[in-house]
């Protein structure tokens, strides 16, 4: 297991390198000159040159890249073009917000997806199964931000159970954190629940037809034990692979759902950076996101290995 972790961590380095080259070269292709945006229409030629020099834009791209890379390797992702804020600082400040939203929605997706998928698989073609399957199909067609709006209208505006906007950090008040994160997490997790439910159902139906399930029943093991230990352990193997992909999707979806609930997370940061063509901020955001995705994939790989003995390096 340790070897697998180290292997994956080593594979992370070239991936991050390629991503950094990619984003750096792409963002250097920006058609508009960020300096113009900063100094505005009234700026003089001297001001222009000064800003260009300060931002280091006079150096050749390759030189700038390696300078940036050297610092990035030490955790310094540079400074925003606009407000002299450290990119690392800005990203780290927002990271817990987006992460808690993603994590809670992932939990909701797993719990709802597993429950619906198992219930449907245990009685294939029953009305429960049809209901779950149709629900999952529709759930995958509902845009998360629209679902968020509807949740706000019902549970925040009308029933006043949850706040309509804002985010309370977990450290400030766990209860308020839960209240502030519930609606956005439900909105975000819906489509993933549907995707996971579909996967769980098909995996579970397949596993329940396996000989070893019948053999376990023939051995007189209680039905519940056979379903939840013998069948589920095997059905979870393909589900874990889907989960890894779904968490990436959730992370992206969080950027949009944050806007519905006026949550000041990475999404707001990214949208502002795009509008201002804040290159260092965009680069930093992409890099941090890739790192997050790779960590999630590493974690799911480890779980995959635990569930599936054949996948373990012997």
């Amino acid at each position, binding site marked *: 297991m340790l070897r697998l972790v180290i292997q994956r961590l080593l594979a992370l380095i070239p*991936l991050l390198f390629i991503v950094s080259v990619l984003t750096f070269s792409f963002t250097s292709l920006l058609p508009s000159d960020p300096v113009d945006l900063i100094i505005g229409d009234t700026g003089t030629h001297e001001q222009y040159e000064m800003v260009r020099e300060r931002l280091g834009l006079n150096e050749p791209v390759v030189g700038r890249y390696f300078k940036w890379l050297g610092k990035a390797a030490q955790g310094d992702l540079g400074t925003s073009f606009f407000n002299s804020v450290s990119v690392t600082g800005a990203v780290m400040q927002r990271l817990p917000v987006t992460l808690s939203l993603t994590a809670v929605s992932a939990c909701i997706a797993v719990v709802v997806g597993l429950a619906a998928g198992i219930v449907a698989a245990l009685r294939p073609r029953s009305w429960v199964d049809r209901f779950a399957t149709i629900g999952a199909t529709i759930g*995958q067609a509902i*845009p998360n931000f629209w679902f968020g*709006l509807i949740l706000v209208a019902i549970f925040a505006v009308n029933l006043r159970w949850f706040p309509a906007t804002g985010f309370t950090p977990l450290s400030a008040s766990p209860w308020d954190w839960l209240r502030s994160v519930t609606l956005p997490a439900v909105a975000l997790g819906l489509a993933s629940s549907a995707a996971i439910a579909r996967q769980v159902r098909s995996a579970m139906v397949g596993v329940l037809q396996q000989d070893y399930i019948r053999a376990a*029943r023939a051995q*007189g093991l209680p*039905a519940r034990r056979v379903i939840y230990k013998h069948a589920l352990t095997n059905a979870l193997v393909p589900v874990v692979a889907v989960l890894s992909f779904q968490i990436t999707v959730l992370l992206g979806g969080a950027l949009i759902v944050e806007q519905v609930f006026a949550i000041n997370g990475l999404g707001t940061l990214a949208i502002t950076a*795009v509008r201002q063509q804040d290159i260092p901020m965009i680069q930093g955001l992409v890099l941090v996101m890739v790192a997050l*995705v790779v960590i999630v994939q590493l974690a799911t790989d480890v779980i995959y290995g635990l569930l599936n003995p054949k996948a373990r390096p012997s």
Partner: protein
Amino acid sequence: MTLHSIDKSVSRAGRSRRLNASFVITVFAGSVLALLVFLALFADWISPYDPLQQNLIDAMQGPSAVHWLGTDDLGRDVLSRLIHGCRIAVIAAAEATSIALILGVPLGLFIGYRGGWWDWIVMRLVEAVVSIPGIMVAIVIIAILGTGLHRAMIALGILFSTSFLRLARGVVLAEREEVYVRSARVVGASDSRILLRHIFPNIAPPLIVQITLTVGAVLLAEAGLSFIGLGVQPPNASWGTMLNSAASYMDLDWFLAVPPGIAIIATVLSVNLLGDVIRDAIGRGIAVKVKPETPAARFDAVVPAASTAGATLPEREDDVLRVEGLQVMISSRDGEEVPVITDLSLGIAKGETLGLVGESGSGKTLTGLSILGLIGAGGRTTHGSIMLNGKELRSLTERQMEQVRGNEVAMVFQDPTTSLNPAFTVGNQIAEVLRTKKGFSQKDAWDRVIELIDRVGIPRPEERAKAYPHELSGGMAQRIAIARALSCNPSLLIADEPTTALDVTVQQEILDLFRDLQDEFGMAILFVTHDLAVAADICDRISVMYAGEVVEMAEVDGLFSAPRHPYTRGLLSAMPHASDRNPPLPTIRGSVPRPGSWPAGCRFSNRCDFRTGSCDQRIPLAGTERLVRCVRAGELEREGAR
């Protein structure tokens, strides 16, 4: 096996039902999408108002006769904006999907065909892009290109091109080494010709599925990007921008969010459903129109009740298992129940081995499973009695039956590599039985596991107990399965073709193991096999099964020396003998009729060389010591004795 043939008929029933469902879905999804395209094309003529016409006096009106869906915050007609939004949705889907297709497919074909450095570099780049959340990739590209519908769609096109690229590359890699491609190369076809004429056609089916997936994803992404202000820009009407303005007024007029939301959901749902239907159709080899099979002749006496049974089984003092008049029905196509086992009787005494012999599809495996009460969904035992150790199993509750399984009867299956759970160590799986059934402690269970594994003849049991099933050979896995079955010392062991999946050399060892264990534990064995040589080796008595019923039962020696049923005779003469090298091996013409299409009289009559007119009535199992189900059994025996 019987189960397989039934599965097939059940799945055919399911398929025709699914075909109907998919027809309904196709019509629904098709109409939604047709309506969408129609509205998009004729938006200017259809929409009652100019979608950009503001009227601040009439702002935020609910639905009315004048404005069917009300007006928005600037007094614009919501219905008109919705209809014009269709146009944007169609443009967005077409634009982004085409860009993805045009970028992805040629590049994927090229790198897949070329391989080498090109492939390596492009694939690393694709991996990098794929590891970033899709919406973030789009955001970065929009940062470079700027906002607006077309730029956002270029961004989405680039994003989704990665999936087309990987798909095209995958197909090329699979097809490149196919014989027809290589032979085209040999005759000197150019690379571009090979790609276009030979490889490209293979991409079409998965490509169509990928296109539907992409269209759905593009629609959702476009709405999302427009919603956060990076896609379509106000005041243009797209469903995403409509939701954007609605978002600010959720406390005042939540209805504003409903029409564009429903429009998005209906469209995406239709595209996804259509994609599912296409994928299913391709999965079946695009055999969308399945010709309904002519229904097989039903046999009229649906329930040949136990009363037609002639002779009853001779009762014996030491019978462990006694099955009488068993009938099992399985619901098949149209939910109709079809008998798969009828009037089946057998008895096994302590320490005795009864062979259940017959061709595939005769109901042997199902007999074993019905004794365990594990026929599965769709099947049930309708008649007869199953007495195990003097207890009527059919009257037990599922809970009581759980107690019986493992403790009094256990089963060994055909394929040991699939009958052991791949996720747990083999020792763990035996220990689990001991703990749940016998209440053993963790440690006691493990000690007993080692003993058992040692007893079934596996060297280094401590080590093997910690192995996973896939780490063991087939023969060793079957020994483990036997150890597990015997762990609670059952009085009856059902062995379902336990040597069929094994190497010939291993088969004999496993048979010897069964004999040894029977001497030691004294259990009765129901040995299901299609192999008469194996049956002759291990069984004391043999029941021959044909089309769901027993046709002959006798001691092994008697059966082999003087078979009384024509089917048994056929089986014996079709048996290869090592000494007998005279080809050809005789066979029984035809095959076992499927459940539901059994002849009304003797079920073997349509394959039988001795058929007479009286074979068209039900024939009871007759005899005292030896039982046989044939009107001409007497003649056959005399002929055999000659």
